[in-house]
């Protein structure tokens, strides 16, 4: 059995009368790039939200690195090693790019109010480390030239990459990207694919929601397909591409085949 880093078991998510996820079960192997696809409204972002602790599943369990995530607060889940980006960019708009990333890096620091007040050595060291790490990540993402600009003034492509940099700053084991290529040109999508491969090469595991099929097919190792809150297919990109249920979910069934 491969080394499973995240295990979603029989997760059901209900909001009042609406069932967003229904008995969803899948696992992510350490080091793989897993794609999560499905038509609009299938429950992909809900799935993300359950994994990252935004919602508590109505039933079922999520296990990360061998430990269940039930009962943990959101920031604790992040500290355990799950980081994410958002479908609608949620940067801190009036903070600079590098500050945004430093907030992520702060998650792993030990010093707090006391250390800051007295200016302890450990506090200065952690500040320095945070700055260096933030700048490294910005350079890695190729956006270091605008490090001192307010996040809301950055061009769209920079903002998306900044979100990823911020998520990486929390030192995660699993990186969840929610539609990172939305609004990108084909050239930018190519760059993003290279970036995701580079991220995996550094040792991260990636869970990816995307609508762009060529991107998904091109960069993922495995794909999970959701429709109406249920998993309808899993497998390699090639397998999923030819799966009739998947095709039906996206394109509908031809009239004469019903």
């Amino acid at each position, binding site marked *: 059995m491969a080394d499973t880093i995240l295990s979603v078991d029989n997760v059901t998510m209900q909001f009042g009368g609406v069932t967003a996820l229904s008995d969803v079960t899948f696992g992510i192997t350490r080091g793989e790039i897993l794609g999560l696809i499905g038509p609009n409204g299938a429950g992909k972002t809900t799935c993300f939200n359950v994994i990252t602790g*935004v919602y508590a599943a109505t039933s079922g369990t999520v296990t990360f690195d061998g430990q269940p995530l039930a009962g943990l607060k959101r920031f604790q889940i992040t500290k355990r090693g799950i980081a994410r980006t958002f479908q609608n960019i949620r940067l801190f708009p009036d903070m600079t790019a590098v500050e945004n990333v430093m907030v992520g890096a702060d998650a792993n620091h030990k010093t707090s109010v006391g250390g800051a007040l007295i200016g302890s050595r450990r506090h200065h060291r952690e500040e320095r480390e945070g*700055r*260096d790490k933030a700048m*490294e990540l910005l350079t890695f993402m190729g956006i270091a030239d605008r490090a001192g600009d307010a996040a809301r003034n950055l061009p769209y492509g920079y903002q998306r990459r900044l979100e990823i940099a911020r998520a990486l700053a929390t030192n995660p084991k699993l990186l969840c990207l929610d539609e990172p290529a939305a609004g990108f040109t084909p050239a930018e999508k190519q760059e993003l694919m290279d970036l995701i491969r580079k991220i995996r090469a550094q040792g991260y595991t990636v869970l990816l929601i995307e609508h762009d099929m060529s991107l998904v097919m091109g960069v993922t190792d495995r794909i999970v397909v959701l429709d109406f809150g249920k998993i309808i297919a899993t497998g390699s990109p090639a397998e999923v591409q030819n799966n009739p249920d998947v095709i039906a979910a996206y394109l509908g069934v031809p009239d004469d085949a019903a």
Partner: protein
Amino acid sequence: MSLSETFKSLTSTPARAISGVGERIGEMPKVSRWSLIALFIVSLYLMPWWPEVPVLGWLIDTPGTSFEGVITDKVVIYVLVALGLNVVVGLAGLLDLGYVGFYAVGAYTVGILSSQHANLPWLVCVPIAVLVSMAAGVILGTPTLRLRGDYLAIVTLGFGEIIRISANNAEWLGGSRGISKIAKPPNIGPLKFGILDAKPYFFLGLTIIIVVVFLLRRLENSRVGRAWNAVREDEDAAELMGVNTFKFKLWAFAIGAAIGGLAGTLYAGKVRFINPSNFPLQLSILFLAAVVLGGTGNMWGAILGGAVVAWMPERFRGFADKRVFVFGVALVLVMVFRPQGLIPRKIRKERWLVNWKPPQSTPQSGEAEVGRG
């Protein structure tokens, strides 16, 4: 340029000039920077003598009341309060309408410990009072910080009132008569604290403000300040980035309460007689107005706001009983035309960024090693 743009540039020019000066000072070499700051601080200590300066003096002097009295009794205290409330409202983004409660807790603790039930010297009472205020902040914050913003407002308002009315009804707190004969700060060398001369109180207050500003700056430029900014800008996203939002909100509350309590001890040590009517709800509102007027989230804005709100009614005493009315109208006008406050929060490019170089251990330029170490 249209009229509105002209107006905007007119009003923002002074603010930008001030921050422009600040930036240029920041870029200076260390020695010149520190000597300028030292010069500035010395001139602050000379404030009791400012009215004697030709033009400036006429501008700021308060005819009809002692200028010294104004800067001691009001300006210093309001500035300190504004600094503390700015941490809560401006930095962490928590709407607190009952800040006078912490101020009262500080003053009453000093009163109880130095007059009502014991005879401890003022200097001993102060740290105890600050701790008690801080504890009050934690006690109030723990159940209520989970509430949404506007609910927090009404609950904090209630807290302020509860403190005042409890002080009024409880005999061991002095009841409606209050507490008198509160200790004063101890005489330090040539500085004698007494009724005759307000200057020692001013110097003491100014020193406290400088220390508080220094400490707050440290907090702002650390992960604590970043966490507060993140919580204020997008609390949910902050939590998902690993920020323990509840802890930092509580810290903001506690620190704000501590500073408020500290201001209360100064007040008690100066007037030496307090009663519940000194701490009405209107004062909380005045404090909030000071912070917003000056510019929320900006320490210098808070200082300016506190100073203006404290000083202006005294400067324009000519209005006599119409002062409060004028204040109300002024508040509306300032908010309509400059809602971000006199010195708005600015996004600063950090000084360290200008000269940043990657640490020596990175292999080569281009792709940095960002492995999961």
